[in-house]
């Protein structure tokens, strides 16, 4: 029987009541008395030298408070990159400065040049139009391959070239990896583009800076997945402010998908300008600005080769990727194509030799950084596509080929730096085959063909690595931040609990899930537990929410802190019942003495902690509040198998996703309904990437898809009803809950399933098509059929 409380209960999301009734408190809902508004003047060209900026006329216009240009920020640091990658020659990556407002040059459409602060937003825009800027437009470099040509235009004059780094993981010796390929019975090669995407959370970014002259304290309200990270980066690297004088608040966040991890210029600007103007300063991004300034995702160009022996065992993988960094290094940009991409190249398979080479490239485009999955979708896509092509070339069943090469013994050390703690890839594949009704596919295909359509079935596996850890290893690999998280469990006198956590929900449902864990541990009702998050002045120094880490990392910290609370509470209970601490048991919110009928309620113990009249004061401090910092011993490794069935209209090229089956192993699951929802959302984004989304620039660096008129987001009728199953569970071996994380799996695992299915459909119609780059749009499918 399904549980209705604690771990494993599909409780409805308590936060949805306010979200669905319009009572959410988002950053744009925050208005500080006396606030002014800022409008940024942004570059309309991709690359230009700024010759002069004349703000005199604009300054005279009604309502203008102050106009800022790059020169106002000369004494201020630039936006930092949080991960230093060391290249294959032992050299640090090339790291260009990233000013708050452009200095001398603009490097992408949307690069901020000036900022007008005025009484109203309309006045700020009016004044912005009166600013006169003289440019010398320069040729732009957009294509990564030509950016690396000798003599290419340089995005940054003071760098040696447009190459950020040339990095290798696994078998670094080119000769040795070649030997593995020379010995192969079969080699399959695939060249592909993993296209650039725009995250497009429903809520655009917002920043409100406020400065209190009396206390010399700054407050920044911002749309962030990790307020403490923003405070640290902004204080230590950009503005040089002491952290105890800066408070960063991220209230309700309306979606992030990674793009709200990073520290952006507008956040530092509003904090800086609030003091300079002695007025609160607010910025709300328009959707146009979001397209031009939110960090983009993906944008890899890859060649992957898979070697197999004569028994179809995988013997080697070699992959070369150009990864687009855009014009500047966003906060974690450098780590995405390296430590979150190269490390996943073993997939679910025991391939003995792997070489991953990544060349990161600067171009005159918006910076690229983590987007749901962040590196892992790029790894999964190329690997699962090349395996599918190999199966076709070898005329073997694609599922059998995968099963034959599965890793089955754990722990497993991959050749690309990871150690998988546990997994059961046959287990999830069994669930996939059971739920996908593959035996009924032939009949469904015949039905489609009778309607003049082609039907295809695509299958793939995926593995991901969540909760980057441990901090010391990450630090050795170049991380400039810790990767632990923190929680404070504050028990109130009457027994209710406030949990102050470093993780920050931007849609994940932490307010519902985290209390379920504590309710399970103590045996009290979830309604007695409240989550506090998103405010650096309230919560301990935690690292926030990204990389599917919240429950595995912050949840573990919460468990540790709760264990400390329970241990102390048992001491108090032992005192109250005049028993030995070792005999105290906690069940259903009641402490009892083993083997007796003595008991004392949770609320009596908590009240005693704060009204310590009958209390062992000589041995124990009053109060009941504990904090834990948790630094994981390893990543977690969710994995699974996905299957997609599509119907292709060969006359129009239209692809319709008819069925999608997901079988995931997330380890233990706290709230199955929320996990279902996370998978649904991830699948929607993965199908969106596979079929619809594409961020395109023209040769001059103009953004061709700068609005929803041309950037296709998935809509409800673009996706089918999903079959989701996470019953195959191998609990994580190294965190207390045995959980792995589920936020990104859908987006990581689904694109290859969709493309594999489209190729299967086309081949069934006699069309000799081996690959179509995403998005597999109707036009691209039609062109492929014509060839």
């Amino acid at each position, binding site marked *: 029987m399904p549980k209705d409380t604690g771990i494993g209960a599909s409780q409805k999301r308590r936060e949805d009541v306010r979200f669905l009734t319009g009572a959410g408190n988002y950053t744009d809902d925050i208005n500080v008395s006396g606030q002014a508004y800022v409008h940024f003047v942004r570059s309309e060209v991709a690359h230009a030298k700024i010759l002069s900026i004349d703000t005199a006329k604009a300054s005279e216009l009604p309502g203008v408070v102050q106009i800022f240009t790059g020169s106002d920020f000369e004494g201020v640091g630039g936006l930092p990159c949080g991960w230093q990658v060391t290249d294959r020659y032992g050299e640090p990556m090339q790291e260009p400065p990233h000013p708050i407002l452009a200095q001398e040059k603009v490097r992408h459409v949307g690069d901020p040049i000036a900022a007008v602060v005025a009484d109203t937003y309309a006045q700020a*825009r009016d004044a912005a139009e009166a600013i006169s800027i003289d440019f010398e437009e320069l040729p732009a470099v957009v294509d990564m391959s030509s950016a690396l040509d000798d003599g290419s235009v340089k995005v940054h004059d003071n760098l040696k070239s447009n190459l950020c780094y040339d990095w290798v993981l696994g078998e670094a010796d080119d000769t040795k990896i070649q030997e593995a390929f020379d010995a192969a019975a079969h080699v399959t090669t695939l060249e592909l583009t993993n296209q650039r995407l725009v995250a497009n959370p429903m809520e655009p970014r917002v920043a409100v800076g406020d400065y209190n002259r009396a206390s010399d304290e700054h407050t920044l309200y911002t749309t962030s997945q990790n307020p403490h990270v923003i405070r640290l980066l902004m204080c230590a690297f950009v503005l040089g402010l002491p952290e105890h004088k800066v408070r960063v608040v991220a209230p309700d966040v309306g979606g992030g998908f990674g793009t709200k991890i990073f520290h952006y210029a507008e956040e530092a600007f509003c904090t800086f300008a609030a003091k300079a103007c002695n007025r609160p300063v607010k910025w709300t991004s328009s959707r*146009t600005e979001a397209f031009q300034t939110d960090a983009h995702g993906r944008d890899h160009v890859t060649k992957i080769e898979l070697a197999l022996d004569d028994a179809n065992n995988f013997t080697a993988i070699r992959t070369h990727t150009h990864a687009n960094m855009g014009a500047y290094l966003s906060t974690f940009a450098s780590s995405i194509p390296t430590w979150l991409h190269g490390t996943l190249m073993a997939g679910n398979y025991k391939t003995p030799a792997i070489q991953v080479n990544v060349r990161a490239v600067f171009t005159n485009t918006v910076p690229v950084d983590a987007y749901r999955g962040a590196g892992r979708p790029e790894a999964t896509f190329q690997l699962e596509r090349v395996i599918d092509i190999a199966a076709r070339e070898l005329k073997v069943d694609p599922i059998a080929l995968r099963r034959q090469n599965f890793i089955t013994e754990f722990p497993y050390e991959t050749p690309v730096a990871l150690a998988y703690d546990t997994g059961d890839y046959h287990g999830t594949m069994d669930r996939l085959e059971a739920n996908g009704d593959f035996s009924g596919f032939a009949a469904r295909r015949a039905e489609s063909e009778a309607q003049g359509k082609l039907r295809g079935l695509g299958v793939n596996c995926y593995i991901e690595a969540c909760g980057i850890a441990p901090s010391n290893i990450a630090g050795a690999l170049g991380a400039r931040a810790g990767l632990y998280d923190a929680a404070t469990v504050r028990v109130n006198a009457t027994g209710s609990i406030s949990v102050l956590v470093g993780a920050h929900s931007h849609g994940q449902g932490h307010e519902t899930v985290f209390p379920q864990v504590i309710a399970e541990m103590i045996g009290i009702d979830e309604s007695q537990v409240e989550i506090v998050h998103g405010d650096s002045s309230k919560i301990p120094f935690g690292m926030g929410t990204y990389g599917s880490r919240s429950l595995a990392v912050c949840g573990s910290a919460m468990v540790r802190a709760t264990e400390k609370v329970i241990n102390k509470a048992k001491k108090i209970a032992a005192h109250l019942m005049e028993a030995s601490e070792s005999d105290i048991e906690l069940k259903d919110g009641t402490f009892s003495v083993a083997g007796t009928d003595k008991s004392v309620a949770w609320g009596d113990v908590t009240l005693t902690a704060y009204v310590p009249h009958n209390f062992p004061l000589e041995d124990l401090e009053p109060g009941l509040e504990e904090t834990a910092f948790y630094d994981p011993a390893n990543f977690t490794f969710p994995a699974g198998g996905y299957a997609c069935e599509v119907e292709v209209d060969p006359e*129009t*090229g239209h692809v319709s996703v008819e069925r999608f089956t997901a079988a995931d192993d997330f380890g233990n699951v706290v709230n199955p309904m929320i996990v279902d929802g996370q998978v649904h959302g991830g699948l929607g984004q993965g199908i969106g990437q596979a079929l619809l989304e594409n961020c395109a620039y023209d040769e001059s660096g103009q953004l061709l898809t700068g609005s929803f008129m041309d*950037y296709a987001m998935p809509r409800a009728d673009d996706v089918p009803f999903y079959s989701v199953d996470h019953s195959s569970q191998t609990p994580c071996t190294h965190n207390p809950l045995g959980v792995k994380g589920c936020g990104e799996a859908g987006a990581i695992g689904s694109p290859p399933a969709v493309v594999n299915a489209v190729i299967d459909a086309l081949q069934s119609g006699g069309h000799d098509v081996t690959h179509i780059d995403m998005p597999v749009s*109707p036009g691209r499918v*039609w*062109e492929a059929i014509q060839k």
Partner: protein
Amino acid sequence: MYNFEFERPSSVDDAVQSLGGEALALGGGQTLIPALKQRLNQPDKLVSLTGISELNGISMLSDGRLSVKGATTHATVAEQAREHYPALADLARHIGDPAVRNRGTIGGSLANNDPAACYPAAVLGSDATVVTNAREISASDFFTGMFATVLSDNEIITEVRFQVPSSANYQKFLQPASRFALTGVFVAKFADGVRVAVTGASENGVFRWADAESALSANFTQSAVENSSVSPDGMISDLHGSAAYRASLVKTLTKRAVAAAS
């Protein structure tokens, strides 16, 4: 947006009086308001047509034509034209989303003449007459290119009179992002021949596919156009599809419209 004056007259005559200079007529605002928000247009005055009752409504005329008044919303056409001209109602029912259909008007759509809009295909395909405060304009003369019509600055579309075919159908293939017509084909069968009007495909806006019209006038079946094809020359080529792809869609959608209308 920039500041502007706003007027909401109650008669066409008053509206015409109010126009002039840098003033713009405002129908449902589904194109103009977003443009204003982006500061892409700077009228000194907007003259709303939504308060003019004589610009609203659908009726059958004594000569058998269907009259749709200029400020009638897509939602109203979708609902009220159904019994008189089902293919037109069906086209209106698939424009944009409910919010667009409840605000957007037929006159606004035609005056804007977006190359991917749906209504131009129906107007040209139905040999409709566009009536303004000043004159009556045949559909064949009305559209002059992408976002271009013969309308003068102060002219207001007051009514569109559609010939009602014996059968008709509109097939729209969606541009995946905007869900405007990547290509749309309106096929209408009249006693004296078949008209085939294509939107979304050509760099010159809506056009009639003459070869298909003559083939279908002789034999109103899908196979009649099997050997016809549209030249990709002059077709739109962009991120969402090449000129050759659009040309192919014209033929595919024509066949499907014939099948649906047969």
